[in-house]
């Protein structure tokens, strides 16, 4: 009895370990933060880009309106790519665009907007990158769709045709 029990238990242990490793093999090891939907927008003091005024971030957003918050920077190449998409979206009357200028120099950011156009109604100047963290972002570009002070959708990376369609669908 005992001589049968030992090989059997060893077999079971190795089998379990094999299954765990085999499953782990198929998981990606690239982690993206949980997309927390219906999260309330953060409240912190933010500096406005042009006026330099300090406002509370939640004051920028009104209830019952759709906002697209876009984190961008003049040094970020994908931001340049998605900029034309943002300008198209800014033509939409029901949607207001808010920018977060991430770790940028003001002169460079101004040049960027002069060159490519300014789709943003307001821009938050995020010199040290803490603003982006308050939003749960981890790089540029990132875009959030906000309604009623809640984040209803989050896009990591540049927007594309597909995400624009989705934004328009969500706004209906």
């Amino acid at each position, binding site marked *: 009895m005992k001589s049968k029990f030992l090989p059997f238990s060893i077999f079971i242990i190795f089998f379990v370990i094999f299954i765990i490793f085999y499953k782990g093999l198929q998981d990606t090891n690239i*982690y993206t*933060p949980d997309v927390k939907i219906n999260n309330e927008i953060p409240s912190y003091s933010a500096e406005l880009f042009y006026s330099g005024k300090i406002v509370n971030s939640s004051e920028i957003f009104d209830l019952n309106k759709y906002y697209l918050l876009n984190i961008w920077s003049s040094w970020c190449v994908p931001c340049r790519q998605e900029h034309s998409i943002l300008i198209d979206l800014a033509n939409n009357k029901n949607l207001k665009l808010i920018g977060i200028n991430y*770790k940028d120099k003001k002169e460079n950011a101004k040049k960027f907007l002069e060159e490519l156009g300014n789709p943003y109604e307001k821009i938050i100047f995020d010199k040290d*990158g*803490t603003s*982006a963290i308050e939003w749960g972002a981890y790089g540029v570009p990132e875009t959030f769709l906000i309604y009623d002070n809640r984040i209803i959708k989050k896009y990591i990376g540049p927007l594309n045709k597909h995400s624009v369609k989705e934004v328009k669908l969500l706004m209906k």
Partner: protein
Amino acid sequence: MKILKFFFIFYFIFSFNYSNADNEDIKIKITKNLRCLICQGQSVYDSDSEFANSLKVLVDKKLEEGFSEKQIYSFFKDKYGEWILYDPGLNKNTYILWLLPILMFLIGGAIIFKSFIIRK
């Protein structure tokens, strides 16, 4: 008297040192327990990426605002999920992680007990 003076100065210097170092120590401890999300396998403390540097600044800010260590962890957990903590709490996703070593220890102990002590 001289010795007393000496001790006083000694004490003064060291107390000064401690009051300043306190926040720094906590900051290091916190940033070592936060995972840098864009540079996998490194803590925020070890990393020099844009993301990690911003996180360090924010930890500093929160400490100045009077946040406790636990509050800072829950702040980041709220934003980025459990994954950002190197030391995850006990919940339904992590109970195997926490209980398996204890279980293995107990099973191992039982085997040793059975094969050595009972045989004697």
